[in-house]
């Protein structure tokens, strides 16, 4: 009996040992997807909300180990009590066991290092053989509080400098544990836009020396794209912004109806797709939903920037918020103000205080890839993968990107804003550029 038990135990240990997954780099497989690329949605709003169907997505191994790491707050800054939990800078890494190239991934607007799309890119590049390090967007509260010099994101020079500084600190932290051969950079949405400015800074300062920089679905002009997204909410809400509450209630109720009637919607990878098929939302409704998501991001950014800079934009300057203070009134007020209003009433006055000669137009111009077009058109290591129908691009933006990046750009006809990022053929384009 005892022998049998011991034997069983030994077997169990052996099985456990055999089950520890070993990951082999699979760049070749990722770069050569099977079948022809066919993104199913011709409507860019549908593409943006629903994304790639599960069958078209790149297959990545399960159980990739992603480790969260932290670094101290910059400048021994005192963190306001209401944001007490932002007391360390957080990032994450999926590390190879041996020496490998490293890629930084920067999140989109208000997206943190653990955002769904950041994690996806992390898994993708880890599978391709990289140490994949995910960094929050400078518009993510944790970054704003612990790593941003001013905590007021949107002023290009400052965002890029803060990111570049943090990447060097992270790199030093990572190099203590794993060997790094070279360093690349990518980012999606606003993170792609940030990547371009960090690449330009790196070109001047050479503190890191990026091997490859990949821009995924970036805006061209932050101001123009913010206007587009602000308008999506305001123009598509029946009755204007005052009906935001009614609109959200309506959306939630429709989802609840769907759940009640059990119309073939199952939780899982294709839930959004099923919901879309069952509800058949109009383009206006989808645009309003996208606008509402961006509006929430704007509220998050504005509130955090306001608390950190004592600007009096949402919170009275002399009010100290405590852990127990209700923030609901500030949420409501934040949701009634768009990103452009944050730009005009918080960001611009804030930076004008620090640089008295700065004009509003200078900030707007600087916050566009056009301001670094000479660098981008020359930089052989900077590439772009995006969709021609990306809804955050304004008229003329696709032309600008085509002109500037030439053969370093890959355009897919469809995919909306970041909607086809998980498609196997789109993923192959990312990996191919990084592996060149």
């Amino acid at each position, binding site marked *: 009996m005892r022998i049998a038990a011991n034997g069983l135990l030994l077997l169990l240990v052996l099985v456990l040992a055999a089950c520890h*997954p070993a990951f082999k780099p699979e760049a070749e497989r990722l770069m050569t997807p099977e079948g022809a690329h066919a993104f199913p949605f011709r409507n860019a709003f549908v593409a943006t909300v629903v994304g790639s169907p599960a069958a078209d997505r790149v297959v990545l191994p399960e159980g990739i180990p992603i480790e969260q790491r932290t670094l101290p707050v910059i400048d021994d800054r005192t963190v306001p009590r209401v944001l007490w*939990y932002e007391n360390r800078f957080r990032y994450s890494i999926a590390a190879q066991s041996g020496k490998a190239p490293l890629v930084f991934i920067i999140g989109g607007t208000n997206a943190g290092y653990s955002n769904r799309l950041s994690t996806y890119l992390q*898994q993708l590049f880890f599978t391709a053989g990289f140490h994949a390090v995910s960094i929050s967007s400078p518009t993510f509260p944790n970054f704003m509080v612990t790593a941003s010099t001013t905590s007021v994101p949107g002023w290009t020079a400052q965002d890029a400098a803060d990111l570049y500084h943090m990447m060097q600190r992270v790199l030093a932290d990572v190099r203590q544990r794993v060997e790094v051969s070279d360093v690349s950079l990518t980012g999606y949405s606003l993170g792609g836009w940030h990547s371009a400015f960090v690449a330009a800074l790196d070109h001047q300062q050479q503190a890191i020396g990026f091997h490859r920089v990949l821009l995924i679905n970036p805006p061209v002009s932050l101001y123009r794209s913010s206007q587009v997204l602000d308008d999506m909410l305001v123009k598509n809400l029946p009755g204007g912004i005052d009906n935001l509450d009614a609109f959200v209630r309506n959306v939630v109720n429709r989802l609840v109806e769907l759940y009640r009637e059990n119309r073939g919607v199952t939780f899982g*990878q294709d839930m959004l797709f099923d919901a879309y098929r069952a509800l058949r939302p109009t383009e206006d409704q989808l645009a309003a939903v996208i606008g509402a998501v961006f509006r929430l991001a704007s509220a998050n950014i504005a509130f955090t920037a306001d608390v950190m800079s004592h600007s009096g934009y949402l919170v009275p300057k002399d009010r100290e918020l405590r852990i*127990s*203070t209700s923030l*609901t009134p500030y949420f*409501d007020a934040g949701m009634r103000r768009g990103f452009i209003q944050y730009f005009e009433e918080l960001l611009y006055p804030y930076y004008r205080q620090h640089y008295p000669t700065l004009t509003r137009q200078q900030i707007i111009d600087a916050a566009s890839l056009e301001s670094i077009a000479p660098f981008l058109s020359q930089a052989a290591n900077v590439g772009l993968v995006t969709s021609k129908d990306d809804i955050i691009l304004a008229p003329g933006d696709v032309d600008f990107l085509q002109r500037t990046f030439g053969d370093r750009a890959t355009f897919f006809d469809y995919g909306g804003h970041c909607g086809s990022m998980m498609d196997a053929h789109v993923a192959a384009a990312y990996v191919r550029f990084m592996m060149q």
Partner: protein
Amino acid sequence: MTRIASLCRLATTLLTLCLLGGCASTYQGPVVASADGVDEAARPSFIAVDDPWEGMNRNLYAFNALADRWVLLPVVDVYTDVVPWPFRDRISDFFANIGSLTTFANQILQLKFKPAFETAMRFGANSLLGMFGFVDIATPMGLPRYQEDFGQTLGYWGVHGGPYLVLPILGPSNVRDTAGLAADTAAFAVVDPFGASSIQSKYPAIMATDIVNARYIQPFRYFESGSPFEYDLVRFVYTKKRQVESSGVQPLPVTSERSSDP
């Protein structure tokens, strides 16, 4: 035994409170003094929820985040390091199978006989053929997995959720669901079908694994949402979710809570 007795007392007290009218009041919109600096007049906001103990709740939310960071998640990290994921899935299946007893009882109480039958079949199949529940063979057999608790049963019979409540460690709840949770726990311990509860109290390691697994299968992480309004968002989502789940409709079968996307 004292634990069970006190749980029963708690349940009775809360239930009485709930039935006596705490839940009968309909919500009138936020009673916030319009914050200076905020020029808009306060109006009913879609995100507002009846939350009379908001100050205490927000403090508890912070406490829970700390407990999560310093106690629960480090333990889960060790667990994930030591136990490879195919085995973690087996353990999750095991506790889900035990949990289906609670679901079954509440399905009966809600007169949902067909789903209750399916749940009973699940329990039987998994316990007998699925290695005491370690392997969920019922799902591939086409038997859906439901989740019902006494909070939902109370909701089914018309009891409103009542004021929002953040429970220490356990997180978002409301008065009704807290009573429901206490009743489920007490009933499970008193009825003790198949001796599961006595095994748990005899082998604390099993109860500990139950708790670690419960945290492990929950993907939520505090303060990763990117919103300083996370408390408000969690409160809103929890309330909506429970409204739907307890409104007498047939909830969708549950799939794994850990989404592997993609």
